[in-house]
């Protein structure tokens, strides 16, 4: 199905997007299997329609939204972003979605709302990878409220002008281009505004390896591999990883005063 964007923004330095085949064939979505090619193979069990997203917590307007209503709240925009995985590979992806900042403001968070938490569907029938306890299901990710209201993050509904395939987190997922890919929760069923910092899945699984912020930072190595360089899918030579994945101008001010060595 087509998802025609109303606005387009090229934010990957003019780089050619990674081919559709690779964006939809090489994925980390453990709920559909831990191998890179498993999600594409197993996505058939995920039923992305009908789908609702529950919005609750510290908001004036808690509600349950149909995913198609979500797409009508705001004009869908195309954003071409770099995507840097914590495993030191990267892609350039043309996402279609609505700006998270617009969505957050529309929900009218209370003064107590300090964090926004995103929860993935928990249903082993649709997500067979959840039959094994590889991670503590359901998958949870979160942003600070000021990160969530930055203009960059997207609630993505599509790719390349088409609705999101299951393996990429259909029907709605988070995209935060200056953070490692695992921050982008997939197949979201619940968005909760909280006062306390929520537990997040990878941070809880291995706190020394995956921080809450998970900002792309070439200066802080993963304990088991270097984050200084990355392999862009489709390229032979590794290239240097950019601080904040090259989006420092838009986001560095969010972390003023925080020790940059801790920003991982």
């Amino acid at each position: 199905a087509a998802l025609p964007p109303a606005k387009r923004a090229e934010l990957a330095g003019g780089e050619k997007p990674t081919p559709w085949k690779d964006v939809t064939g090489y994925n980390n979505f453990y709920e559909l299997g831990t191998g890179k090619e498993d999600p594409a193979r197993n996505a058939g069990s995920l039923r992305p329609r009908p789908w609702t997203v529950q919005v609750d917590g510290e908001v004036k307007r808690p509600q349950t939204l149909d995913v198609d209503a979500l797409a009508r709240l705001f004009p869908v925009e195309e954003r071409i972003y770099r995507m840097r995985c914590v495993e030191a590979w990267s892609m350039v992806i043309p996402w279609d979605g609505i700006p998270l900042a617009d969505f957050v403001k529309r929900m009218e968070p209370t003064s107590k709302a300090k964090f926004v938490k995103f929860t993935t569907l928990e249903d082993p029938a649709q997500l067979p990878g959840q039959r094994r306890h590889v991670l503590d299901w359901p998958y949870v990710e979160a942003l600070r409220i000021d990160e969530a209201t930055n203009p960059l993050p997207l609630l993505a509904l599509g790719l390349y002008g088409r609705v999101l395939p299951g393996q990429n987190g259909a029907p709605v997922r988070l995209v935060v281009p200056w953070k490692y890919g695992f921050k982008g929760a997939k197949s979201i069923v619940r968005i909760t505004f909280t006062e306390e910092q929520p537990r997040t899945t990878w941070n809880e699984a291995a706190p020394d390896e995956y921080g809450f912020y998970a900002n792309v930072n070439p200066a802080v190595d993963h304990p088991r591999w270097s984050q200084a360089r990355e392999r862009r899918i489709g390229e032979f030579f590794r290239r240097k990883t950019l601080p904040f994945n090259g989006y420092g101008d838009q986001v560095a001010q969010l972390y003023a005063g925080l020790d940059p060595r801790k920003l991982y």
Partner: protein
Amino acid sequence: MAASTPTPAAEAATSATPAPTAPAPPRAAGAAPPPSRARRAGGRRWLVPLAWALGLLPIAKVAYDGLLAPGLGANPIEKVLNRLGFWTLTFLLLSLAPTPARAFLGISWPVRVRRALGLLAFLYACLHFTTYVAVDQFFDWQIIGADLARRPFIGVGFVTLLVLAPLALTSSDAMVRRLGHARWKRLHRLAYAAGVLGVVHFLWRVKKDHTEPLLFAAAFGTLFALRGLDALRRRLVRRAAGPRPGASLSGRGAKVD
């Protein structure tokens, strides 16, 4: 010790005077006689070439996938590294299986492909390392040096290769003769160390789903336990047979296969 010895007196007599005939290998029930050189050179001549042919198939598959239609996916370098690593561990595991298979199942033909399996493990380890150096890092020695020093999983992988190298270098009949069988065997027990290091390398490399490395660990552990069990059994059999007069208790220099 001959199992048919009827009385202690007769045993004393046989051990005191040299046996008139050449000492025959002990033929305990269930244990097949070790193949003589003549038999080794004789039947099933095709076993070793077949082992090599099958053992090289995974390389052919990588070449086929890389050069022809199926492709190696979005991240071909990662996939080639993973496959070569997988086959290194698999052949290392297979090379350790023939001895317990002979001891417990009485199947002796796998022993004849053991050397081929061990050399295949070393070949895959070399290809895995070469891919990492020449393709993955493209001879960036600074990065490779930092990886070896700072990242334990890469360091452990490199040590695994270093442990396998002397085993491959001493794999020929001439080297077995030169080292002496007992010393050669002690050296080649390092294959177990390589197995442990290889599994640790795999475990540390995986992000979260440890199923595959743990399966390898279980398989290596089983083979190691079988070897231990076999050694224990032999010791008990020796003890039950009683100490030979004049034989040292430690059994040093005794040929234990």
